[in-house]
């Protein structure tokens, strides 16, 4: 046992790889939040009047809200007046091509493994990189443009495609949806916008990379994906942040709109800085993600690998409005040390014969708390709705906790809803079986954890699967309780 603990310790000590800080000149708004800041951000982004009005209405609504407390996490109160709501890398003119991007910036992203040049040449993944508050580079734009696909930063979309933004922004996550989405709507600084026209199958993975760099800043980005009839897109999102002692807030909103027969696949590998081993610092990740299967036969699939953040609080959801639409949610949430995660999904079945599937795997180690919170709601009209949920928890160590809060609300007698959950640890017999076959204990644990999470990992696109598997290994390998 002591040897196991040693291995556990060694491996959990492995440091956060992305904790560096890049010295990039930034310009930022003064600390705090008030109407002037909202106006300042809007002005900085050279936004039209309606966008400012929209932000202000969100801000005014936010003032009337109270920070929610129902989630199963604890953290010191956030002082919203102590956060810088806007920080942008200084760059005189917007880059026409990648070669014009600040070399320091490019070096930062290269350190993160996102080499724009390489991406362009080898992998065929279009990347939109967001540093602190603004999008710094988008690759493959022209190639996508040929197909009519719009993939650009949010501010660019507001400038160049206002009619689309106006139509869809807030249509899935309304301004007054919840505390953090209202905050985001008021101060969001940038993000990605993606529009897939009718019948187009996006030929490559679209990817956004988020990075918080500056101190004391909060990051509030907004992603809007619109998939028109019969289109398909696979979208990836990754995130990292430097190591800092104070907590930083990240409150993003992701909206997905899927028209008839459209399919959107959204994958996230979330690796924000989780805080130190003693639980100091780290990112608060309070994210609202929601997809609307508006048309018949549409499909939205969320896949997430959550390994970072001090506190995670997110529920990627699907509103299955169109008949025969499909929602999927695959999640691996890993918590270690003092991390806390309260994550899950909502599947709202409105249309007939809608189907949803939830596979959630929680892994807790150290002194962390990992909660699954989900809702499956079958409305009266949703005849023949079908849901299957499975949430399994794996506990590594005796000081962590695993919690499951599934809400199942059914109002239609022709719906079938099933839910299963288990909690367990890695069995001594499983380890023994591997040891017997000459597999060292730490490898055996990696093997078992990977097997535990495999169902979800299989859903990830190739590039991400590799990264996610490595992340999983770094966080947990060798921990045998």
């Amino acid at each position: 046992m002591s040897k196991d603990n040693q291995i556990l310790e060694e491996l959990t000590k492995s440091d956060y790889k992305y904790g560096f800080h890049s010295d990039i000149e930034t310009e930022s708004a003064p600390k705090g939040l008030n109407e002037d800041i909202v106006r300042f951000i809007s002005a900085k982004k050279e936004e039209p009047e309606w966008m400012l009005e929209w932000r202000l209405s969100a801000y005014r609504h936010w003032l009337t809200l109270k920070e929610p407390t129902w989630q199963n996490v604890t953290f010191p109160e956030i002082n919203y007046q102590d956060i810088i709501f806007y920080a942008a890398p200084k760059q005189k003119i917007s880059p026409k091509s990648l070669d014009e991007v600040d070399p320091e910036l490019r070096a930062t992203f290269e350190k993160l493994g996102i080499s724009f040049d390489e991406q362009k040449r080898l992998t065929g993944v279009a990347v939109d990189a967001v540093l602190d508050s603004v999008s710094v580079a988008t690759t493959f734009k022209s190639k996508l443009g040929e197909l009519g696909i719009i993939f650009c930063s949010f501010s660019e979309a507001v400038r160049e495609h206002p009619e689309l933004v106006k139509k869809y922004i807030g249509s899935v996550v309304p301004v007054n949806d919840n505390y953090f989405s209202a905050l985001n709507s008021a101060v969001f600084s940038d993000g990605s916008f993606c529009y897939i026209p009718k019948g187009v199958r996006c030929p490559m993975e679209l990817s956004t990379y988020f990075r918080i760099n500056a101190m004391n800043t909060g990051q509030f980005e907004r992603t809007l994906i619109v998939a028109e009839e019969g289109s398909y897109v696979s979208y990836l999102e990754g995130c990292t942040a430097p190591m800092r002692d104070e907590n930083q807030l990240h409150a993003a909103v992701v909206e997905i709109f899927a028209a008839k027969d459209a399919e959107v696949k959204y994958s996230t590998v979330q690796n924000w800085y989780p805080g130190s081993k003693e639980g100091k610092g780290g990112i608060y990740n309070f994210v609202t993600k929601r997809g609307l299967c508006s048309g018949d036969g549409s499909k939205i699939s969320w896949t997430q690998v959550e390994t970072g953040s001090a506190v995670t609080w997110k529920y990627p959801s699907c509103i299955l409005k169109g008949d025969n639409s499909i929602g999927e949610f695959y999640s691996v949430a890993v918590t270690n040390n003092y991390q806390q995660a309260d994550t899950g999904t909502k599947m709202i079945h409105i249309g007939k014969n809608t189907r949803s599937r939830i596979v959630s795997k929680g892994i807790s180690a150290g002194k962390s708390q990992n909660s699954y919170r989900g809702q499956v709601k079958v409305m009266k009209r949703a005849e023949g709705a079908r849901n299957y949920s499975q949430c399994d928890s794996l506990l590594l160590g005796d000081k962590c906790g695993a919690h499951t809060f599934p809400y199942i609300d059914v109002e239609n007698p022709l719906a079938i809803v099933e839910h299963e959950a288990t909690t367990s640890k890695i069995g001594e017999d499983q380890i023994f079986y591997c040891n017997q076959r000459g597999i060292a204990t730490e490898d055996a644990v990696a093997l078992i954890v990977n097997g535990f999470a495999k169902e979800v990992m299989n859903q990830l696109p190739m590039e991400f699967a590799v990264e996610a598997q490595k992340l999983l290994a770094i966080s947990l390998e060798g921990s045998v309780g």
Partner: protein
Amino acid sequence: MTTPNEYINTVGKAFEKFEASLNGSKSTFLHELRKESLAAILKSGLPGPKHEEYRYTNFGKALEKSIAYEGIVAETAAASAPTPLDSFEGYKLYFVNGKLDASRSDLGDLSEKVTVTSLASAVKEQGDLKEYLGSIVKSWPDAFSHLNTAFAKEGVFIRVKKNTILDKPLYIIHSNDTSATEVLAHYRNLAIVEEGSQLKVIEANFSTGANTSYTNTVLEIFCKKNASVEWSKLQLENETALRIDNSLVYQERDSKCTINTITLSGQMVRNNLYIALDDENTEAHMYGLYLIDGKTHVDNHTSVDHRKPNSFSNELYKGIMDDQSHGVFNGKIFVRQDAQKTNAFQQNNNILLSPNAVINTKPQLEIWADDVKCSHGCTTGQLDNEQLFYLRARGISEDKARAMLLHAFAGDVIANISVGPVKEYLEQLITDKIEN
């Protein structure tokens, strides 16, 4: 409309009246407890729809009728009507409209090692009552248990002395007759089952009459070392009955406890069941059936608290909802950090028979220990078409086939009741209900 929290103001006034009616017994520890509970309820108010534990079950509308607290017990106690359980062999206690009906109760040749008495006399006679009464409620507080503690003066006290096996089951039969007036009953029951003893209780609830019958009951069971308890609740009230049932169990080493909760009717029923497994090798079984129609609303909230290692809990709740009935289930399993090697199972299956029936279910696991086996399963759906086809292919009519399948579905729960006649009686009730 009076919201629950406005309603709470009348509680304070009612308590003053209640206090005045107690003449003399104000100095007891019980009265101190009452005052504490009243303070708690005045502070917290009654839970409204925003309260997480009561979000689907709102008594506000029911309480709006403001059943006068001064009429806590209708003094015009009606003569208790005969019940189907009368002929069953066992010890019997009858309560009518919240009061003991001594004339019909029959404790026969009850062994001197078993004490069955009213709460009022237990306060006088049982010196150690203070240690027990209200002590489990403290670790699992609820607004309605506080309300009960503040107002209850009637109830059953049971003590089974060391190494005693109660030879026949004890029947506690409550009937509320609301034909003349509304009835409000607060029952406070307490059972202490000492080392190596065994107890079986059948608690049956009936009501008649068109006015509202309101019952708020609290039961505390102490299972000492190696004790064994089976407590079955039969909730068979009519469509005017509101019922809040708080049952709390505390188990010591090697003890075993089974709680069966069968709800077949009523207007709005809320069952809070809490079991604390506070030592090693304890075993808890919870079985529940809600087979409801009309506008009946049944809410079962159960919690098992595994505090020590090597304990076992098993839970099976099944529901069949027809018409506009509404079922709610919430099962919590807590496994504390010390409770290694815990084994906990929970299952909740529901069948909706009508487009207007609703089920809200939330099986909840909260686990702080790593070496445990915990699982829960939950399903909601309708009868399996293949099973129906199988029966129909064998010449069984569709109605009959449906009834058979529903009966089998419900039968899984009933099968766990060990008192033969009660089991048969319930089987019959279920058959009648399904076939109609």
